[in-house]
């Protein structure tokens, strides 16, 4: 096993974002000397920004564990294109954590910024706090969002969660903001709390809202009652009819904007 601990150093301006797609077991396992990150428009050596401690060795990426400490709330792109191993963020993490990840595990103990698990392909990513907007969504103009793997958020999620969802599973234990699952085309989205306007324009996939939906989209066809988890009665809708959609939306309570 190889364990790499990166501790954020004090910075003169802690608001400048850091882009650190090199914080990925696949790069770190070969040594940290040549790795750089970008602080604003300046390219910096990894050890200018982080204290780096490495213990043990690894023969495959799956034997690598990376731990991030300190104020990492402005560090973006951690675990981008990750294809194995494990990253644990002890505090908060910046935007685009787990972009395109294909395998492995990322666990964030604090909050995560926007575009968490954007266009994820596989693996597992967990956030114990809240996540920003566009969790498990796609990039601007991209037709497909997340395609595989599992995202689990224990806090609340922002707006446009699982936008363009295409595959995989997204579970939010708290509430979601506006328009979760908008334009979704596959996959599973489960929201344990409340949300507004879910699944507009959906074509396929399944979304379950165990809390209350406000401003329920008016273009879903009511199919009847079904039994949800824990035996709770859920109303089953199909749609979005506006888009010839064949998605399934199951909700515990709902309200139209009349």
């Amino acid at each position, binding site marked *: 096993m190889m364990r790499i601990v990166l501790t954020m150093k004090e910075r003169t301006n802690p608001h400048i974002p850091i*882009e650190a797609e090199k914080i990925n077991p696949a790069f770190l396992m070969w040594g940290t000397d040549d790795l750089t990150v970008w602080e604003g*428009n*300046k390219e910096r050596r990894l050890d200018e920004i982080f204290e780096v401690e490495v213990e043990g060795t690894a023969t495959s990426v799956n034997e690598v564990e990376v731990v991030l400490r300190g104020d990492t709330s402005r560090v973006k792109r951690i675990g981008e294109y990750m294809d194995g191993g494990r990253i644990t963020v002890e505090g908060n993490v910046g935007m685009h954590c787990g972009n395109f990840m294909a395998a492995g595990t990322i666990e964030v103990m604090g909050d995560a910024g926007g575009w968490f698990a954007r266009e994820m392909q596989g693996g597992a990513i967990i956030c114990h706090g809240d996540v920003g907007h*566009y969790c498990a969504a796609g990039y601007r103009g991209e037709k497909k969002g997340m395609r595989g793997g599992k995202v689990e958020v224990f806090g609340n999620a922002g707006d446009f969660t699982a936008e363009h969802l295409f595959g995989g599973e997204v579970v939010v234990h708290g509430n979601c903001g506006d328009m979760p699952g908008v*334009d979704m085309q596959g996959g599973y989205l489960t929201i344990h709390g409340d949300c507004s306007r879910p699944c*507009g324009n959906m074509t396929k996939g399944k979304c379950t809202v165990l809390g209350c939906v406000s401003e329920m*989209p008016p273009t879903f066809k009511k199919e009847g009652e079904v039994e949800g988890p824990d035996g709770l009665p859920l109303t089953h809708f199909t749609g979005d009819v506006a888009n010839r959609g064949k998605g399934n939306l199951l909700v515990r309570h709902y309200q139209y904007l009349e």
Partner: protein
Amino acid sequence: MIHEDMICPFCGCLCDDLVIETKGTEVVRVDNACTLGSHKLMNAGKHRLKGPIMRDSGQWRDASYEEAIEYAAGILLDADRPLLYGWSSTQGEAQGTGVSMAELLGGVIDSTTSVCHGPSILAIQEVGHPGCTLGQVKNRADLIVYWGCNPTEAHPRHMSRYTTYADGYFLENAFRDRKLILVDVRKTETASIADEFVQVKPGGDYAVLSALRAIVRGREDVVPPTVAGVTKEQLLRVAALCKEAKFGALFFGVGLTMSPGKYKNVRNAIELVDELNRHTKFTLTPLRGHYNVYGSNEVFTWMTGYPYAVDFSRQIAFYNPGETTAVDLMARKECDAALIVASDPGAHFPKKCLEHLASIPTVLIDPMHTMTTPLVKCQIPTAVTGMDAPGTAYRMDGVPIHVKKFLDLGYPTDTEIIGKIFEKVKEVRHP
């Protein structure tokens, strides 16, 4: 002196039939413009800042152009995340120089699009733009839909030049033949002349658009009796009007782009237009506000591939509204120096953003004292494009128009000032 066929540099209509009479540096008469345009043009030479000003321990003092340019280049070069924001009320030429400078600086360049029609562009990037020029609308459209906008007040000559009151080559009696649908959250002046006024509850645009899409494709069975305050009967009437039209044109404003759901509202409108095109001809055009905000999108796109919010910090262009847009950068206190060009964030941005703006070194390039002036450390006055400087501007439908000058007040143009700052930047960072 009488200047004919002048262009109004105020709103996105870019009216090109103005007659302006000047005596020396005074404007004495403006013909054909609306009240907004006339007011701006009649005061063309007035309220200008005499020369650059800089702040010294809280006090304004006069400065030379050289000193101000030197200062601007200095703060941008020193920054780790410089922001170059504004660009909607200036020449295309200045916008182009701005992009080149942002690239060399490794900065972020964003235009006021991000606070008005940015969502329209995001939607267009998802599903395309079924658009046309205003000339097509004028000559062919027999149905006009204004959604979330008030052309009577914001684009006063839009209706007389291109829609309701305009003659149409292919319409016998344009005024009688052309139907008008207005959709808005409140009853505005335009509502009194509309054939159908649809009053939507705030935030309900997305739902109404979805319902219309379902109705147009024959699935009114799923639509509940009222949608966001609009009755199903009215929705059926509106859908029928749209389907019966020979050529429909939908215009929308910030009422759609800045209400909850933002670009998803616009996407839904585009998809409604798409659906209607299975029955008739229908187009969609954003009603752009500032006269050359569309130009900033054109220039940024042909130079960088992206229409606004372009981040060059890693020496390649990256674009992600919400992350690289000026408001977000300021709210997260990311930018550590800013150059504001021809726009007034002081009047429009949230307080949190302005507090950050006031705390970092900032230079404003603007001819007049604005609400942004108290927030900056240095202001450089320049000539106003369309008054004392010529230049290129893009009309709301994407047509480039050469804007002319009719005054000579001796100010340098935006392009000259930004070009000089760029020269200084190049001296330090060779491309």
